[in-house]
């Protein structure tokens, strides 16, 4: 039970484990700013980030945070007011006319409302980028068939978009975006108009394409679940500023900004439900016990820590709140409990023990004993 963990699994659970060395990033954004009108202030304010080739990169934020503008600056649907955007070596923020249009063929894009041509069949929609790229007619047919096969719509080639479901329309959107074999796929709230089940199917398709084609996927969304499920890296935007960025697991396990914390509320139990939070005070009181939040990551999630707190340290923890999720394929749990030691130092020893296990534990407040007694014993 108390045997030291193998160092390998310990490292896997560490929050600041170094990312594998990144090759030349496929997208480089430097000091990007965008202002639509001076009165409204900047929509994007000095945003810098890099996206590695083959990554699935999530951009998350509330509506109006600037995340759509950010992704639209990548293929220059939006003209940046300042800064640089480099995609596969082309500085799209500087290109114009023909050069810009050629560069855009390397950047596929799918949209929240699919944006298919109602006047063309499914095959016709997928043919459009091939026509624009001057692909000879004889080559288009097999290419379209292969693309529709890839997205699972081989039998719908002659259907019109109006005859398809939302999920099928997005599949057409994906096939169209991939027609010119781009190295980047931009997804602007691509699953926001879809029901949860269809969202999962589309995400599975994106993940599959990412693996099979080595395609870099940039995913803008306000749905944290989407990022949790498929993004390997994530950027959090708030009022046009990049407030947090890193490996999805790290950001979700140890969010630094209040925005990220509140965003994660539905996904990871970083924040207590308001009715419990209301009973906490930031400073210790005469009759209060400390409230401890423990973040489990990786292998340490398997440690019987509550039993340890009781058996080894003689504490009597009372669990307030907890949740365990899979994030980027790894378990991530957050447990909040109250544990008083009457001031004899057992708690401090227990926290040191948890730290040795590679768990992140901290005192986040103090709960009055009567308040808790009311909560647990009294009528609600």
């Amino acid at each position, binding site marked *: 039970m108390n045997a030291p963990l193998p160092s390998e699994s310990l490292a896997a659970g560490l929050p600041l484990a170094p990312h594998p060395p990144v090759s030349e990033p496929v997208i480089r954004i430097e000091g990007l700013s965008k202002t639509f009108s001076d009165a409204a202030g900047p929509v994007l304010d000095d945003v810098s980030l890099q996206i590695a080739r083959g990554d699935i990169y999530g951009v998350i934020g509330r509506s109006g945070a600037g995340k759509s503008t950010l992704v639209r600056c990548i293929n220059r*649907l939006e003209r940046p007011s300042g800064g640089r955007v480099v995609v596969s070596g082309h500085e799209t923020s500087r290109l114009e006319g023909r050069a810009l249009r050629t560069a855009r*063929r390397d950047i596929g894009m799918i949209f929240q*409302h699919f944006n298919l041509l109602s006047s063309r069949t499914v095959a016709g929609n997928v043919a*459009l980028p091939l026509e624009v790229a001057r692909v000879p007619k004889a080559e288009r047919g097999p290419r379209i068939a292969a693309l529709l096969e890839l997205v699972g719509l081989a039998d719908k080639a002659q259907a019109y978009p*109006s*005859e398809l479901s939302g999920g099928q329309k997005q599949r057409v959107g994906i096939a169209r975006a991939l027609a010119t074999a781009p190295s980047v796929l931009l997804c602007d709230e691509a699953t926001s108009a879809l029901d949860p089940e269809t969202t999962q199917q589309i995400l599975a398709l994106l993940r599959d394409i990412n693996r099979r084609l080595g395609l870099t996927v940039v995913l803008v969304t306000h749905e944290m679940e989407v990022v949790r499920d498929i993004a390997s890296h994530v950027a959090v935007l708030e009022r046009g500023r990049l407030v947090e960025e890193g490996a999805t697991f790290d950001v979700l396990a140890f969010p630094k900004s209040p925005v990220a914390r509140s965003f994660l509320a539905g996904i990871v139990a970083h924040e207590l439900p308001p009715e419990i939070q209301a009973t906490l005070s930031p400073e210790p009181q005469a009759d209060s016990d400390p409230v401890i939040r423990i973040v489990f990551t990786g292998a340490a999630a398997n440690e019987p820590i509550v039993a340890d707190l009781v058996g080894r340290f003689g504490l009597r923890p009372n669990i307030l709140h907890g949740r365990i999720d899979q994030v980027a394929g790894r378990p991530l749990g957050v447990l909040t409990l109250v544990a008083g030691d009457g001031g004899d130092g057992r708690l401090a020893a227990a926290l040191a023990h948890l730290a040795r296990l590679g768990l992140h534990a901290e005192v986040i407040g103090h709960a009055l004993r009567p308040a808790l007694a009311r909560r647990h014993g009294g009528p609600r």
Partner: protein
Amino acid sequence: MPFDLLSPAVTAALVESLKQTAFMVSVAAVLSTLLGLPLGILLVVTAPGHIAERPAVNRVVGTVVNLVRSTPFIIMMVAIIPFTRLVVGTTVGTAAAIVPLTLAITPLFARLAETAMREVDRGVIEAAEAIGASPWEIVVKVLVPEALPGIVAGVTVALVSLIGYSTMAGTVGGGGLGDLGVRYGYQRFMPEVMVAVVVVLVVLVQAVQIVGDAVARAVNHRIARRRRGGV
């Protein structure tokens, strides 16, 4: 049928007038569609925020279109006589009537086409831009095809207006149904001729509307409809 009430001479005149109207209207319709569609495209794409934003061009073209549209047809016919002579070499007759008809209907159709194309979803245009389509490709492959049902409806409205305007062609000796109705029905006190002319015009307009609606429906794929027969 009113034809039984009419003398053979009048019936012959009616048929002749119908031919003149059909000739004037169809030639003017083709010409104003060919001239009005590019004008409508110009009005759409040069508008602020569109794919070839040119506010100055947009304002000038828009003003000219409005000027022509606000000129009463009967006045325009007379006012442009020098221009008509320049184009067809004469100022009287059916061919001469085609010039003012075309000039009057082109701006109307341009506005109708503009409205139809303005309704094309910005998102679809952006998708085409994201693919790397040029403004010209967006016009040809997205704007016009996506707006086609509305453009066809515009052609129908323009045709009906043309039939109405063509009745005034008698002013420049263009003949046609309107001219027949005025000369025989009004000036020779033959009300049955007037009625016959109106009946023929009603049937003509009705036919244009029915055919126009059917074509607009056939080119509209925006709403799913049950497929007839096999796929």
